[in-house]
Structures are given as C-alpha cells and as structure tokens.
C-alpha cells in the first residue's frame, strides 16, 4: 500500500460521471400531467380497441354443432375398443339462415381432451418427424416400438391418438341432391411445420422409405397411406397429422380441419340453405366424458369470434377513465396543500 504513494502515484479517485454517481439521468417522477394524460390516452385506446374488437367479432358468422350426443349410437360403439374395425357414420343436417360471406373454415373441436398433459406433450420424437432418423423413438414410450421391436412411425402418444373422424359437408341445393361442398385440405398448417419440422424420409417411394417401421396401434393404416392422392400430403407431411401434432394449450380446443374452396356455388362463401355434416365416427370421447363438435366460421382481421378480448378492452378502457377522473379529483383537491419538510 505504501508503495504507490512512494512512486508518486496519487490515490485520487477518477472524477468521472460514473464513478462519482453523477451520470446524466432523467429522474422518473409520476407527475400529475404525465400520469393523467397517459391514463386518458390509454382509456381512449382501450375503449376504441374494445369497440372495434366487439364489432368485428359480431360480424363473424359461426356455427358449432356438437355431435357426440347426436351420434349417440356411434359413440356407444366406440366405447368398446374391440369394435375398432366396425364403421359407423352419422349425418347431421342443419340450416344456414344467412350466407357466410368470404372464406369459411371448418374446425373440429374437442372438449375435455387434455392434449396439454405433461407426459402426453412429451411423447413424440421430433428427430423422427424431421425424417432423418426413423429409428429415433426417444420419448415415445409406450408407443415407441411394437411388440416385435420394430419402431413405430410416427411414434408417441400424440401421434397415436390422432383425431380420425372424417367430416364431410354437403349442401342441399334445391332441397334435392346434396352436393359435397368443395373443401381444401391443404394450407391449414404453419409453413415452418410443413417445411421444417415435418419431413418425410428421402426415398423414391414413400412406403419403402417407411420400411422397417410399423404403424401406431390406434391407426387404421400406416402413415404412408394417409393420402393416396396427393404425395405432398402424405406421410409425415399430411396436413391433418401436422395440425394434430401441434398440441393445444387447453383441454378444450379446436383445430382447423378444412377450408372452403371458393368455386362454383361457393364463390361468395357458403350460401344460406340446408346443409348436413356426414361424419365417419371413429374418435372415442365418451369414456373420458369428452365431447366433439364441428365448427364452421368466417374470419376477420382480428381472427375469431371471441368477444372476450373486446370486452376486456372495453372494461379496461372504462375503468381507466374512471380511475383517471378520480385521480384528477384527488390531485385537484390536494394540489394546494402546503408542503412541509421535516427538518433541514
């Protein structure tokens, strides 16, 4: 310690703004004008946004039909797993009183299905789905390998429990012959899912690519036969499969199933009239007291028909305004109060 002073170096600290804690700074203080104007502005914004959201949600046409009870006998049949090979179909007619303008989307919706359960979410193999290593069935137990040890592709509980009802919407033009409403089964997934996360193993022939693997136990057909018509929709690249694999956040969820192909009668959307859903009922839900429904919906800029966000925005805006008025009142009453400092 002595050394430095003998060397003539002073121990004088540097006079810099940082070291002297004198950095130029803005002293944040909640001034009345600042707070009140911020509150008024937020109130305006929230109210406006709330109204816009409510209006746009109101403009949406949506039809939801729960078909678990309607197709009660099918549901009963599916309660017994041994009946898996018996086909059961069910037709649900309904009347659309107003035209659904614009793009119409068809969803299936599940109630009480815990796709967000920890061990369920985990039960998949991303490296298998990306197509590089079909034998990588890491977390998939108990759906990783069949009894004879061949790896399951796609493995895991999520893939095994894929939603396998088929829903066909038909339109009764002139109340006579039902026409099948043209639906697109593509374009219902995220680009990154379809082109990054899910890839078929490279091979000339899809079935040979999946050679050495077996289908999940609940599946009726192997993965390379999901869509025989469109090779871009087959194997791991099947859109329905990809949609299912994107697990839902809550036990009640809907997933995009088809979107309307706007041709012929349906250029404007779905015209008013008689329709029916023809459902091949495969997916059992009654055992765990779940329900299934099918949803038809149009869209606006803000998405779906949920009123929630619009309502919360409106309420927030209103409360903010109330709060700012009361704060202003408090401020004005106390503004001229004398300020006394304790001691100097």
């Amino acid at each position: 310690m002595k050394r430095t002073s003998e060397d003539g170096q002073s121990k004088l600290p540097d006079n810099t703004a940082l070291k002297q804690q004198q950095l130029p700074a803005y002293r944040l203080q909640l001034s009345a004008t600042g707070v009140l104007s911020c509150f008024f502005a937020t109130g305006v914004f929230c109210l406006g946004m709330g109204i816009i959201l409510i209006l746009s949600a109101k403009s949406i046409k949506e039809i939801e039909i729960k078909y678990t009870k309607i197709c009660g006998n099918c549901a009963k049949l599916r309660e017994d797993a041994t009946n898996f090979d018996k086909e059961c179909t069910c037709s649900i007619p309904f009347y659309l009183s107003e035209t659904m303008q614009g793009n119409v989307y068809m969803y299936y919706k599940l109630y009480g299905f815990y796709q967000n359960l920890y061990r369920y979410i985990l039960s998949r193999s991303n490296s298998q789905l990306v197509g590089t290593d079909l034998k990588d069935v890491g977390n998939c137990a108990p759906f990783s390998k069949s009894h004879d040890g061949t790896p399951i592709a796609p493995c895991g509980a999520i893939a095994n429990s894929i939603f396998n009802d088929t829903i066909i919407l038909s339109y009764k033009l002139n109340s006579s012959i039902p026409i099948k409403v043209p639906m697109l089964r593509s374009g219902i997934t995220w680009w990154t899912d379809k082109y990054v996360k899910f890839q078929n193993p490279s091979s000339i022939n899809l079935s040979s690519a999946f050679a050495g693997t077996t289908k999940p136990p609940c599946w009726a057909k192997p993965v390379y036969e999901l869509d025989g018509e469109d090779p871009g929709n087959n194997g791991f690249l099947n859109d329905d499969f990809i949609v299912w694999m994107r697990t839902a956040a809550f036990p009640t969820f809907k997933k995009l199933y088809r979107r309307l192909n706007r041709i012929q009668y349906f250029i404007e959307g779905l015209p008013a009239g008689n329709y029916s859903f023809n459902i091949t009922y495969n997916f059992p839900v009654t055992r765990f007291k779940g329900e299934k429904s099918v949803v038809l919906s149009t869209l606006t800029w803000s998405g779906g028909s949920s009123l929630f966000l619009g309502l919360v925005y409106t309420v927030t805006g209103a409360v903010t305004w109330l709060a700012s008025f009361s704060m202003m009142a408090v401020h004005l009453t106390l503004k001229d109060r004398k300020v006394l400092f304790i001691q100097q």
Partner: protein
Amino acid sequence: WQVKANDRSFHEQPHFMNTRFFCIKESKYANNAIKTYKYNAFSFLPMNLFEQFKRAANFYFLILLILQAIPEISTLAWYTTLVPLLVVLGITAIKDLVDDVARHKMDNEINNRTCEVIKDGRYSFGLGDLCVMGVFCFEQADILLLSSSEPNSLCYVETAELDGETNLKFKMALEITHQYLQRENSLTTFDGFIECEEPNNRLDKFTGTLIWRNTSFPLDADKVLLRGCVIRNTDFCHGMVIFAGADTKIMKNSGKTRFKRTKIDYLMNYMVYTIFVVLILVSAGLAIGHAYWEAQVGNYSWYLYDGEDYTPSYRGFLNFWGYIIILNTMVPISLYVSVEVIRLGQSYFINWDLQMYYPEKDTPAKARTTTLNEQLGQIHYVFSDKTGTLTQNIMTFKKCCINGQIYGEWKPLPGPRACVTRQVDFSWNTFADGTLAFYDHYLTEQSQSGSSTVFLPACGLPHGHGQLNYQAASPDEGALVSAARNFGFAFLARTQNTITVSELGTERTYDVLAMLDFNSDRKRMSIIGRSPSGNDTRITEAVNEPLGSWEIATDVFASETLRTLCLCYKEIEEKEYEEWNKKFMAASVVSSNRDEALDKVYEEIEKDLILLGATAIEDKLQDGVPETISKLAKADIKIWVLTGDKKETAENIGFACELLTEDTKICYGEDIKSKILKLKFPRTEEERRMRTQSKRRLEARKEQRQKNFVDLACECSAVICCRVTPKQKAMVVDLVKRYKKAITLAIGDGANDVNMIKTAHIGVGISGQEGMQAVMSSDYSFAQFRYLQRLLLVHGRWSYIRMCKFLRYFFYKNFAFTLVHFWYSFFNGYSAQTAYEDWFITLYNVLYSSLPVLLMGLLDQDVSDKLSLRFPALYIVGQRDLLFNYKKFFVSLVHGILTSMILFFIPLGAYLQTVGQDGEAPSDYQSFAVTIASALIITVNFQIGLDTSYWTFVNAFSIFGSIALYFGIMFDFQSAGIHVLFPSAFQFTGTASNALRQPYIWLTIILTVAVCLLPVVATRFLSMTIWPSESDKIQKHRKRLKAEEQWKRRQQVFRRGVSSRRSAYAFSHQRGYADLISSGRSIRKKRSPLDAIIADGTAEYRRTVDS
C-alpha cells in the same frame, strides 16, 4: 516453546510432534512459507465447488439438478437449472479466483523476500537458524536480535506493516550477544537455547529467557524483530529465528475476523425459507390435485395410456417432485449472486467517491468489507472515539501553570498597540522552529528571567528521546518538547544514559538513571536522573491526575478542553536510589507477570512528589465535526462518545462538537444511579442528556441493571461515557446491540478502538495519527470524521434503498414468472406442465430480467446526494426498516401473484375461442407459451422501469435491451435453421414467427401489459399525492430547493465566522519507549542521510540528528 540455535534436528525430535490424523505426524513448529491463498491450480475446481455448495442456496439447486435427472419426476429439461446454476457458480468462482490470484501474488512477494541464512544458504528458513539481515530487508520470521552493525547492537525498524506507524523504532540486542556475536564465525558456533512463551498474537509482548554459557538472560519484546518489520538505518544485523511461518505474531494476529452479516441478510434468508415453505405447500396441493384428477379423468383417458401401472396417488406423489422442480424458480437462484454483485459495485462507489477523499494524506475512502453496504443506511447508534476521531490528535502547547500562575492566555501588552494580538517572538532563540504560536509574553519573560527554570526543563526531560526534528512516541510528548525548545530549553541529544539540554544557551548534561515508562494503569511516567552539578538524584514525573490545590488550574484547563499534564519532581538520596534500583533490577528479569512486578516497584519511588506545574496542550477538533454531528442527530442517529478522558474534559468536548448545547439538561452518572435502581423504566425528558461513570456501572453486572442503563441512556439524545477502557467500549456497544436490537456503528482511529470496531455491526476506521490498527480491523475506512455523514446519509441511504428496491422487485419478478405454472396447472390436469418453453425458463433469470434490476441496484438514486445531505430526515426510512420488511415482502408477493394471474388469465380468455387471421387455430400450447412469455418480459421490464427513479442511458439501454434480447433469442431459438441441427432440443420451431404475426396476439399482449401496469401507476400516483413520503416531497420540489440552495450559498459568502473550538485529552493508551531508552544503550546514530520516507512530504520528524 523451545528453540535451539544452529540445530535443526533439535526441532524435529519426536516429542515436538503432534498427531494430526491417525498416523500422520506434524511438527508443532510451523514452516516459514506463508500461505494465505486457498487454492492451487489443481485444487481450485473441487475446493471452490465444495465451498460454494456449502451455501444453502447452491446446495438446494444442486438437489434440484439431481431431482431433474430422475426420469420419473423430471418435468423440466436438464439445462433449465444447470445453466443458471453454472452462471451463478461461474461468477462466484471467477470472483474467488481473482481474489486468490491476488493472494498468491502477495504470498509470493512476501515469501521471496530474501534474507541470508548463515549456515545453509538462502530461503529455507528453519527455527533456530541464524541469519543476516540488511537494510530495507523485510523480516520473514520473528527473529531474536543478536547483534548489529550499530553501536550496542541497536537496530532500527519500521513497523508500518504491523501497526501502520511509520516512525522508526529501536530494537536492542542483549549485552552479551552484542559482545560475543559480532563476527560470523562466532555466530555459527552459537549454541544458545531459548525458552519462551508459546506463539501468541500480542505484538507488544514477549517474554523468554536465553540460556547460554550456563547463564540465563531475560528477553523481552524489544529484542525481537517481528515478521513484517523493515530494517532501516542499520547496515546489517544478526538474528536467530524463534517463530517461523504461521507461528509468527503477525500471522497469529491475522486470525479469524468475525463474519458480519446485515439485517437484510437475515431477513432475506427468512424470506427464502418462507418461500420454500410456500413452495412445498403449493406443490403438495397440486400433487393432491393431480392424484384426484387421475382418479377422475386421467384413468379413463385412453390417449394418456403410458404403459405404467401406477395408482393415482403414486402419480400424485411423483408429481409433487415434478412441481418442486418447475416451481423452483420461486426461490430465486440468482438472488444471492446478484446481491453480492450489487454490494460489490456499491463498495466501489464508496472507494471512488471524491468527496470522501482526503487530499492532504492522499487517502480515499475504502470499503474493506463489501457485504455490509445497505446496513449503512440503517444505523441507529454511532459510537465514536474521541481522540483522533473527533479531534485531530495533533497537539500544540497552549498553556501552562507554574506555581499557580497560569500562562498562555492572551493578555493585552502595555503600550499603544495593546489590542493587537501579537505572537511571541522567539527569534532570540536559535533553536526555535517557528511553528509554535504563543500569545502570552509573560511566560517568555519569565523563562528568560529564569524563574521557571525548574519547570521547563522538566517538560523536556521525561519525553526526551527525540532529536532536533523530534520524533516522539506520542503527539503530546512532541508538543511538549518542541514547546520547551521554543522557550529556550532545547533538548539537544541523548546518549546511552545522558540527556543533553541547552538551557537558555548553556548546555547541561543529565545522567539518566532510570526511566519508568508510561502505562495506562499508573497513568504517569517518570525519569530518574542525576543533575550535572551534584550528586542529587531527581525524579521528574508527568502525571495527568490533578493533585491537591492545583485542581483549580487543571480544571480551568480541562474546561477549556485542553489536555493537561502535571509535572512533579522530587529529590532522592543516592542511597535510597541504590536500594530501589536493586528491586528494579530484580523485577525486570522476572519471567512471568513482569509488568505487574515493575509497576509495584515504580509505585514505591513515585510518591511524595513536589508539584511543579501543569501543562495544557490543545488537541484541535477535526474539520466539520460539529456539522457532522448535528446532521447525524437530525437523521435520528444517536451519537455516543466513548472516551478515556475525565468527566470535565469529556463534557467540554461534548459542548465543543455541539453534541451538548447550552439548553440541554445534563444528568451525570452519579445522579441517576439511584434512579436506575429504583425505576424500571425511568421517564426522562426527551432533551435530557446524561453521562455516566461506566466503571461503576459495569461492576454491577446484573442484567436488569444493564437493561435499565441502556433503556435510560437511549432515552437521552446523546451519551458520553468517560473513563472507559477499550474493553469497556466494546461492552457498551455490545449492551446496546443486545438490549436495543439496534444497528450500531463504531468509529475510531486507534488501537484502543479495535475491540469496539469489531464488536459493532459496522466498524469504521479513521486512518489518522495513531496507526493503522483500527483501519485494519474496520469495515470502512476514511481519513476524516466528517466523511461519516456522506458515508451514512448518502452512500448508506442509497445502498439501503437500492437493496430494498432490488429485493422487492426480485421477489415480485420471480413470483410473477413462476406462478403462471400454478394457474396453468388447473387446466392441464395438474400434470406439472410448464407454461413456458424450457429455454425461456433457463434464460429468464439469467438474461431477460437480470440486467435492469442489477443496474437499478447499482445506480438508482431517489434524491440527489446534495439533497440527502441537506435533509437528514430522509435517513429515517432505513432505521425504521420501512422499505423492506415482512409487510413489504408480502406486498411484493401479492403483486407478483396478481401479475401472474393477469398474465395467465387474459391470454387464456383470449385463446379459448379464437382462431388466427388465416384460419389456423393459434390456440396451441406453443403460441400460448410465447404469448405469456412475451407479455411477462415486457411487463417485468417496464415494471423495473417504473421502479427506477434515476433513468440513465444505461438503464434505458438495459431495459429495452433486455426486451430486444428476449425477442432476438426467441426468434433464433425458434428458427428453422436451429431445428434442423437440433430437432429435439429446440421444439418451438416457428412459433414466434407464426404467433407474433397475428394482430390478435399482439392485442392480447398489449392488454395484458396494460392491465398489469396501470394499477401500479395509479396506486403509486395516489399514494404519492395523498400520503407523500419525505423523499417524494423533496423530489417533487427539487427545482425549488435547488434554487433556494444556490441563493443561500451566495448569502453565505458574506458571513464567515468560525469560532475556535478546543478539546481536551489525557495520555494516549500506548506504552512508551522508556524501557528501550533506559536499558543503558545509546540511541545515537551515526551521521546518516535523509531517511527515505522524507520524500513523501508529510513526514516532519524523520531526520536523525548528528552526533
């Protein structure tokens, strides 16, 4: 403890071996290499890890890590805990490494100092080795001085490393070794045997016996060169190693320092335990929920079949651990390391503070302990030493009293220029140095006329081992000797046993027969000398107790706060002296209790003295002491002065430094003693002050009385304890600590304050006149008492506020983050599913939310330093624990819980129904996780923005930087490229880009953030308007206050009246050098050039005299 010269094998004999483990034996004699470092290259990693895992928090996270490795219960990826833990361990390890490298360097430097061993060559030092040491040589062991190049084998040493005193000290070899051991060949055959005390830590004590040639010689501390001394002005000296390595006194002294912790530390620990209990309860509740859910739903869900045949309750049990793991972030992992970083930074700010830098001594303030900063903002009681702390400890001779006549007061001279204060002209005196300002001309006249010739030389005599530039053991002595010189009684030289004094031009030489040194029990020192004229032996004595009729004069001095000394003399017959001398000689070779024996002998001769007069020395108050004290008093800090002085002096210093004022009522210890006994809780007026004679108090050790004393003393606004010993000082501090549960600070500068400094919660050392011992044992040190107000009112207050804000925010932030999992579990079957991506959990505490709060903990200021000094009342928040206590903690928790609810339920509501803009259903888990995480990051970072009251560009940068960093990293981790490389580690591919494309999700995020923050703003604003705190008010009106201050300053330029204040004092507690001087050797030096240290300018006394 036995040492044999030149015989290493002697010390390796089996009976000196101590068994360490079962059969590993180790010599009780330590090796000489000093080792203060903890780790070497190989042991660093394991040892450091071991040390770190001894901390409960780190160990807890290690347990978590192990839990995560169990596949059945692991609910988080392995890296979520590992990465933060590694970061935390890494930062601590780097800090330890830097510390240890510094220690290695210091050790190497010390161990490589060379000294020549006579027998075996260099470096390897063993006990009993004889060695040669040259000038500027650092001692490496405790060495018995055998002989030196100087006459009488004298050796000069500087002990700056031991006690900080830079004046030279003398060591002297035994007569016999001086005679026979001058040449090296005689040294190699030296076979003395030393028997001495076991190694201990008392630097000033050593007793031993040298047995050589069948004779025993007494050894004491003056014959031992301690490790760490530097040899000066001595060409070479020979010595024998008696203690080496860890046995040396300096190493024994460096022993364990008590680990101090702050109040907030304890509080924080309790809060972490509380959180831990909450964690277990919540996990248990959720586990039960899961068992129930499994029984009701899970068992019937075919898609959940996992092949394991567990019962629902067993699944619940597994889930308990799973929840322990995912909710572990409630106990904040980076809390402790962040707290350490903040404290370290705050300590640097103290070190860097220019306004606590003392230019005259080139001393900046230093935070020697980096873990106590926020405690500085919570001080209730300040215990201050007086001398050197409140006063400067620079003595000037002011007054004297000879034959009842007081000299030194300013009296108008007869004549026309009567009212002009004129300094006494000392120009007639060739020895005058012109430094003494003395205004009483009568004394000069008297001294010239010779009427006080007995007195003035007497002043000089007892203290006279100085030179023309006097170097005295205590500042008092220096003041006296130089005053005597200015009056014409110059102390010229001292030889082996004579003192030469120039008495008004005539040189006289006195024989010194004995020197009875000062110690604090006798409170006096004497010298027995033979006057040159005849055979009469005279004893001159300096006492600081007032005696008899002189009491009036000394009281006058004391009331003017001057330090008084009485001078007495007596003439002794030659025969009487001879008789006494025999006893004295006998006492000085006693090996045990030598000091008591000597004291007894001293008492015998120090009686029936004739009083000559008294001297009064002024000890000036340091700059700014009264201002500082009144500032601290306004901050509701109670100041107790603990001094060894007598009552009157203490009272006067109290007045001088405005601790007491004219209208305060003073209670004395004697008066209130009866009250203490009678009343359990005496009701005294607020303004009542008291003092007490603590000796009496401490004799009565009954707890009730102690408690009553403390209760009473704390009712008073100031307490002065006089006549206290160093130990009693510490006891007073301890009493207050124990009974008041208050935070105490002790400030002192001398060795006598060390005990008190170590006892108090915070010890402050003043690097002053009395050496470095106080500084070495202190937590903070600076050069002037007045810096205390800045340390407490600015740094302490800021540190406290910053730490409180930091902790409140930290708990809030972790609760807001973690409890989302809790709310989510109601919707996922209590299955321990996290609401965020694993990487987000990993990085949240490390990257996304750490920097802004750290910067706030380092830089935040609610009001500027000037205003916090101007309004000491701002300090009270810390004393009353207003900013961080259990209530605030629960408020933070509730805030965190509410935030987590908003963060979860608004997105939940938004997600239940919605679909994306392009028809895709974004109600998937991953989008939901990204939405909550984004809202959380924005909320907590904006929240810290609201908490930060001092927005520098660094803060702004860190807040927006953290948010940007979050989005950057998220987009990277969810990019296509990284998925191709690591498909299973990065599962969230594409979520950010797809989800954050939706205006709907952005609207959700904005709404969530707004709902989280608006109530906070509103409550802050309302509470600030309706119940403004002191700092709010000042902050609000700071512009007006600033203008006011400038105006005042302008006013002050015209008013300048500094009243001179004085103080009084008694002897210092140090022991003098009489033993050394009187041991019959000359301390004269051959001509030597200027001492090296004279170069640094402050040394005024280091030139040695010509012989």
